[in-house]
């Protein structure tokens, strides 16, 4: 059963800030959803191959030929903060 500490841990993994009330509600909701999902644990599937993808295609390749791509201006156009030709982010190390 998922508890409050699990929710805190998973939220950290997902880089998701949850307000205290939100984390509490999330714990109750996830417990109920996971209880439903746990149903698949009933099946013995040791001999069943997994399906990652439904199409019978793999290793889709194309000739290694350069094609036009986004211009630097276009790539930067939606950035919340830009510095010269780069995305600008808050400091990475303290």
């Amino acid at each position, binding site marked *: 059963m*998922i508890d409050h500490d*699990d*929710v805190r841990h*998973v*939220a950290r*993994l*997902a*880089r*998701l*800030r*949850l*307000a205290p009330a*939100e984390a509490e509600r*999330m714990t109750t*909701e*996830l417990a*109920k*959803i*996971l209880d*439903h*999902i*746990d*149903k*698949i*644990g009933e*099946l013995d*599937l040791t001999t*069943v*191959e*997994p*399906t*990652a*993808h*439904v*199409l019978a*295609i793999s290793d*889709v390749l*194309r000739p290694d030929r350069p094609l036009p791509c*986004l211009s630097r201006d*276009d*790539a930067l*156009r*939606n*950035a*919340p*903060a830009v510095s010269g030709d780069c*995305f600008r*982010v*808050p*400091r*990475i*190390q*303290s």
Partner: protein
Amino acid sequence: MTAGLDPLRLTAREARRLLIDGELAASELTKTYLDQIERVEGRVHAFIQVTADNAAKYATEIDQEAGATRGALAGLPTAIKDNMVTEGVTTTCGSRILGNYQPVYTATAVRRIWGDHIVMLGKANMDEFAMGSSTENSAFGATHNPWDLSTVPGGSSGGSAAAVAAGEALWALGSDTGGSVRQPAALCGVVGMKPTYGAVSRYGLIAFASSLDQIGPLTRTVYDCALLLRRIAAHDPCDSTSVALPGEIELPSAERLDGLRFGIPTEYVARGIEPGVMARFERTVALIEELGGTCVEISLPHTDYALPAYYIIAPAEASANLARFDGVRYGFRAPGADDLTEMYEATRGEGFGAEVKRRVMIGTYALSSGYYQAYYGQAQRVRTLVRRDFDTAFAQVDLIVSPTSPTVAFGLGTRTADPLSMYLSDICTIPVNLAGLPAISIPCGLAGHLPVGFQLMGPAFSENRLLSAAHALEGAIGFSSVPTFCDSRDAARAPGGPYGEAGREAVER
């Protein structure tokens, strides 16, 4: 409104004929829809953004174009779900985190029909990142079902479905990950189709669950559905999971179902289907037999495991896909963070709504160390069993049929407090996404004053068989009701009963 044009009933087929024969100008046709948007959008809220000026201007340009150089769908007014990126037109995906996103390219499916000279009326409302079954999870407010404004249109393509039902668009594009085209089509009384996985390019479709997502049409008729699908279905080098269909999509004309075998999965109709929906379903099954088809009971024994498998696979893929929304390259960034991790967490915490956070949490949990095999690994094996169920069934029958949704449109706000109850809305639509199969929902009548959807599912790449059978059945059903824009909340307070005059009229029709 242009004399004689009823946007609640006009089909793309007829509109196209009028345009080609010179009986109607593209500008008049677009004006008909912009006028209807003006009239009802305040109550329906099918759009996140209406691009009225561009639409009117473009329609006028089409009128000046010589007939021979006009595209195959020239002048047909179209709504596009707001998770398909459109260069020059803000694309939000129903999320605060992309509230001001200006795409720098256009989704292949949209680019194809722009190349056919369709007129885009605007970007349709949707559940945030297509996660939901009611369009109540949009950061920009819920869409209301034009059949009863107190009910949801379904979701996540609820804006696309409501726009077509309300005569605010001739037709629309949506996307279907677990039923997000078919369920809203059912709840809004229109046609909605999910093609075979890979038939339509996902390039420029903002990813929710990449192994399940598929773009599909929402239209008034099955013929229109084929007309739109044949233009968007194509192999695209920009999507390595796209494949060419074995043959071109044909425009359907069948009126009979002779020789076709239809399977009714006992697991789908065993329980939980509302009596009103079940009655319409059974009536439609009887029509299949009247048209010369045969109906037999079949079993899809792992149906009960499809929903839990879906609610592991879809959130797991979503949690990976949504990692890109981090406040660095595009979208919203929370202000005031001191370091990068704090900025990520605050941006995502403030930028995502409650349902998106739930799915990201479920997905991250299912993929986390120590749980991966028990959840994601197990779910992928269940997926194999679901596929095998369909393979076995399609050795016995040509098509499988079921209700599209276990209920008619439910009341706004009635399921938002209980996420699991919302997830159960998709019980009849999810299995085909897991198996990558095509399926279509067509209106099969009313239960009370609300429409009921009938789903036909086929083997991979059986689009032509599906469209042909759906066309024959549509003709026999003869669904001709149109939405009344009633509000049973108002009517319940008024003398004259729960649905008021408008509702009674719909019931009697």
